[in-house]
Every structure is written in C-alpha cells, then in structure tokens.
C-alpha cells in the first residue's frame, strides 16, 4: 500500500509497464540505453525489450522528432527523450509545425500519438543554455498537450496517460524532482491529463504551482499556516489543457491568486492563469494577483548569482503576506550554514 518510489523510478516503471502492455510503444533518445539511462529513467529497458524498442540515436534531434512522428502516423507509439529542454530547440519545427498540426490539417485523417520527454536542468552551474523552462511555448500551440508532473505518483500515472493519448504530448520533468519519493502503486494506472490536484485546502489564498514550484508552494503554505494564513495549493499537473475549473472554484472561495511557475514570469504560463481567472472571476478576486517565477534574464552559471535567480518558498510567503496586508518577514527561510542552493539534496556532489 505504501510503496515508495522515486520520481525517476516512477517514470521508468510507467515506461516499462506501457511497453509491456503495448508492443507499439518504443523509446528513443540520446543516451536512452546508456549506463546512466536518462537520470535512471530508462535503466534496464534495453535488456528487457531489446535494441529495436529501446534505441539510442544520432545527435539529430530535429530529424529524430520527425522520425518519431512518422512512425506514430502508421501506428507506433514513440517516446522521444531529450536531456534538456534547451537541446530540443532544434526540434521545434517538427513539434510545432508538424506534430501539433497533422491531425487538424488533414481533417482528422492523421493521428500522432507520441510523447516528447524533456528535462528542465537546474543547479550546479547549468547556466544559460541548460536550464530553460519553456512550457509556455508549447502551451501556446494548439494540437500539443503539455504535462508537468510534480510527484512520483503523478509522474507514473501522467506518463502512462500521455503514452495512451493519441496526440503529441510534451512531458516536462524537473531535474530536482527525480530523486524525490512518493507512494506509487505497483500496478499500472493512469492519471488523467488536464486535471489539477489540490495539494492542501485553504481559505485565504489560492497558490497555483507548476512542477517543482508546486512543492515550494506547499512549503510556503505550511509556513503561512503557522502564521495563521490558510493557503490552498493547487498542483496544476497539466499545462495544456489546464484545469480552469479547479482553479476558478478555488479562487471563488479564497478571492486571492498567486501563481508560482518554474519558468520566466514575463509572457509565461502564470500570465495565462492570471488572465483567465480575472476574465472569469473578476468579481470574486479581492486583491491584485501575484506571479512568481524566474526574473527577466538568462540563468547565470556562478552559484553566487544563480542562487538568487530561483525563487523559493520564502519568496512565496513574503508575497502572500504582502498581499494579505501583513508585516513582511524577510527572514522567512533562514539557510543553514552548510546548505547549498544549487543542488537538489546533500547527496549530490556534482556534475549532472
């Protein structure tokens, strides 16, 4: 009942079970069968399913996305993985002009069931070209679905659902979630795309978080609770289509909205959520909405700079208190002297 699995193991289990159930599922990506196995998420698959269904590939992300698409057209269910979102920028054309549109533009005659797994790098000097978080781009494109799981449980169920889906699904994993464990049932299950999850209930403010920022939001909610502020935290889970109803229902109750996203604030996912809520629930909203995310510049490499680049729970606490008209507390989350902000946990000793 209380089987603990890491997020990375949950991804592996979902892939394994999907491949076991359906011979048309295959996985391809740079390093998929290598000894590191995409941060552990593909380990052992080659041995179990053979080299035809578990493939490495040339350093040709654009063509290989087209290859995945083509195979999907005739009934395969490819999963293509990229170790950083940044690397997949060379493959935008295939994802956006092609995969997203073949069903619509051929009047429903083509189907493109494929999953594109991409990882958001962070920490240990990933720097400007290994740390981008581009979910807003994909979410802007009709025809794509965009998923960002937060927990290991959801990682497994959402990946299974993404593989079952008959459309191109962009599946974005945050590197800092890979090592976090959660209760994960052993049997195959899916978590439906498009449904958010309320992580904790509250009445004063709604905090919508994506991916790793949902965890920071939850931490913030605990701290806020200690100070008598009741925050409801919603893990968005799917960015496109996103669960408008769950968010609106919550804001109708709380009257206040904070969105915490892993990406840049400007023209990001948080803008869409704020705009949609204000369009629909203008009368319910009691205070100016707040967006929390990355500042409007690239990510620097030096830890001395990068540590200040990423907002954390303390920042959310600060903003919510300001929103509620409470005294600001600046020392919300004091750091221990040996705490490092550029690694997911103390067991990590460099490089990713």
């Amino acid at each position, binding site marked *: 009942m209380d089987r603990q699995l890491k997020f990375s193991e949950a991804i592996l289990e979902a892939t394994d079970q999907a491949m076991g159930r359906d011979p048309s599922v*295959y996985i391809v990506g740079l390093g998929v069968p290598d000894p590191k196995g995409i941060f552990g998420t593909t380990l052992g698959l080659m041995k179990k399913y053979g080299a035809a269904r578990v493939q490495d590939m040339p350093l*040709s992300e654009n063509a*290989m996305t*087209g290859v995945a698409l083509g195979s999907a057209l005739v*009934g395969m269910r490819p999963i293509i993985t990229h170790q950083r979102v940044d690397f997949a920028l060379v493959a935008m054309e295939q994802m956006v002009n092609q995969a997203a549109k073949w069903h*619509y533009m*051929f009047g429903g*005659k083509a189907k493109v069931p494929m999953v594109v797994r991409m990882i958001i790098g962070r920490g240990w000097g990933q720097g400007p070209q290994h740390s981008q978080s581009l979910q807003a781009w994909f979410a802007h494109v009709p025809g794509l679905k965009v998923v960002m799981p937060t927990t290991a449980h959801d990682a497994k169920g959402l990946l299974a659902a993404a593989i079952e889906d008959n459309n191109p699904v962009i599946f974005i994993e945050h590197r800092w979630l890979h090592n976090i464990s959660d209760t994960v049932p052993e049997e195959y299950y899916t978590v439906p795309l498009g449904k958010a999850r309320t992580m904790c209930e509250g009445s004063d403010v709604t905090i919508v978080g994506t991916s790793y920022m949902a965890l920071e939001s939850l931490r913030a909610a605990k701290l806020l609770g200690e100070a008598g502020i009741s925050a409801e935290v919603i893990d968005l889970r799917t960015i496109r289509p996103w669960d408008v109803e769950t968010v609106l229902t919550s804001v109708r109750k709380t009257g206040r909205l904070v969105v915490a996203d892993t990406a840049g604030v400007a023209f990001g996912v948080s803008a869409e959520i704020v705009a949609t809520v204000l369009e629909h629930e203008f009368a319910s909203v009691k205070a100016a909405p707040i967006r929390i995310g990355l500042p409007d510049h690239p990510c620097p490499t030096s830890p001395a700079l990068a540590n200040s680049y990423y907002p954390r729970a303390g920042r959310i606490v600060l903003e919510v208190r300001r929103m509620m008209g409470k005294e600001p507390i600046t020392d919300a989350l004091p750091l221990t002297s040996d705490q490092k902000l550029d690694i997911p946990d103390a067991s990590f000793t460099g490089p990713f």
Partner: protein
Amino acid sequence: MSQPSDNRLRFKLYKEMLRIRIVEETIAGYYGEQEMRCPVHLSIGQEAAEAGACAALEQRDYVLSGHRSHGHYLAKGGNLKAMMAEIYGKATGCAGGKGGSMHLVDLDAGFLGAAPIVGSTIPIAAGVAFAAQMRNEDRVVMVFLGDGATETGVFFESINFASLKNLPIVFLVENNFYSVYSPMNVRQKGDHRIVDIARAHGMEAHQADGNDLECVHQLCTQAVTKARGGGGPSLLELITYRWREHCGPGYDNDIGYRTEAEFLSWKERDPVAAYERKLIANGVGTQPEIDRIAKDLKLEVEEAVSFAKQSPWPDLDTLSTQVYAN
C-alpha cells in the same frame, strides 16, 4: 523498362504522366476564377519523374511529399475528386478543406501526407520506414523533395539515419534547378553534390534524366526492389524543370530570374510529348489511341472540377474540431 515488350505498362505509365499534365493544366485554367483560394505549386514539366517513380511502388507502399505534391498524390493513386475539392476548400476535400493544395492526403492510396515546410516531411518519411522495419512489414516508403530541400539540415540528418538503420526508403529528389526564384549557384556548389552526400553516408545514389519516363521507372524499380529486399535506402536525383511560376498558375519567364531561352530549351524536352512520340514511333500506340486517352482524361478532370465546385463548404462546426484525436 526491364521488359521492353511490356507495352501495357508503357501505356499505363504514359497515361499516368499525361493525367498529371492535364490535371495541372486544368487547375491553371481555372485558377483565375479565384475560386481556388489557396497557393498551388504546379508540377507541369516534371510529370515523368512523378509518374515513373510512383509506378515502381505497390499500393501498400507509402509516399510523402512537400509543397509541390499534386503529381505525387495522383501518381500514387490519390483520389482526384477529393484533391480538387480540397483545392477548392470544400467539405468533400481529402482533408475536409482544412489543408488545401499544400496538404494532400489519401490513406487508402498510401499517400500519407504532404506539407509545405521545406524538408520537414523527409524525416517523417524516414519514421514511416522505421516503423515498417520495426514491424517487419513489406512496405517501402518514397519521399519526394526538391533541390532546395537538400540544403536543409533535416535532409542530411534523415539521410544519416536512414543509412545507419538501413531503412526501406527511397529519397526522390526532383532537381529543377530552382528554389522559388533562386538558382543553384546561390545555394549550392557542384554538379554531383546531392548524390555525393548520399554516397558519403554509404547510400546508393544515382543522378538521371528526370524527363525520361522509362529511365526513371527503371531506376526507381531497382531502388524499390532493393529496399523491399532489405537492401536499404537509395537516393535518386532526377534532373527536370518546372515550366510555370513557382506558386500559382502563370508563366513568369519575363520577370527576370531565368531566361525565356532556358525555358524553351526545356519545353523542347517536354516529357509528355517525348514519350508520346516514342510510343508512336515504336508502334506501341497510335495517335488516335493517344488522343482518345487524352480526351477521356480531360473529361475525368472536368468532372472532378465540377464535383469540387458543386460540393458544399465545410460545416462551420468543423472549424474548431479535429484539434485533438480521441
């Protein structure tokens, strides 16, 4: 022609080529009415390459193409009425009006789709071949592309992958010397670059006269047979010429990117007329027979135009449907 005695095949090939010519001329004729409200890229002048290549395929084999795809669609057996209706933007179109001329599809005929972002269907075709190989299916894929498309990175990535995996695919390059109005010499260097790229990857490649119907057919048959037998991919570069403007129904030799003389020299090498002469000279067919074929085809095409014109517009409900597959 592997069997020079096979006159039935010769007629079939000729008819296929002539049919493309007549369809394209008919589109050019009606375009001025402004009822076909989408870009059209006609392949008049290139019909031998298209008819000869597709005739080497079986129905179960697959074809993909780019912006200039009418000929490939037709030669692979795509439904003519559905194509005309698609160009007219009608509900009966092969893509329900959503695609237009640049997005033809006919799954029954094995024409999996065309898309006009240059180069983009090349890896998609490789993916189709990859699937056929993974499932051990007896299918060959042919993807059509132009000389311009051989300058895209994705072309090269696809050649590398197809060669690496020994995929059952034929890359069919129609080299018509132009990418829109840009001649070869502002885009690439050397007369054998395209085949040499394939050969650099260990892929068999040939350059040939794309206006010679029998030669095209023979080369393609060899490449398809090889692919079918597990011999892997080939690239064929067929030299040919587009007669009309890059996009649209007219002639544009007057605007200055190429000379009328160049055009006329290619018009003399008209693949349709040349093969017609050959058929008659070799006693395979007579002028009256050929005239009858042309007449029948014209009737068929006019019927398709009428069908398209009379077809209803797509229902407005379909505007926002088919965004996601169930």
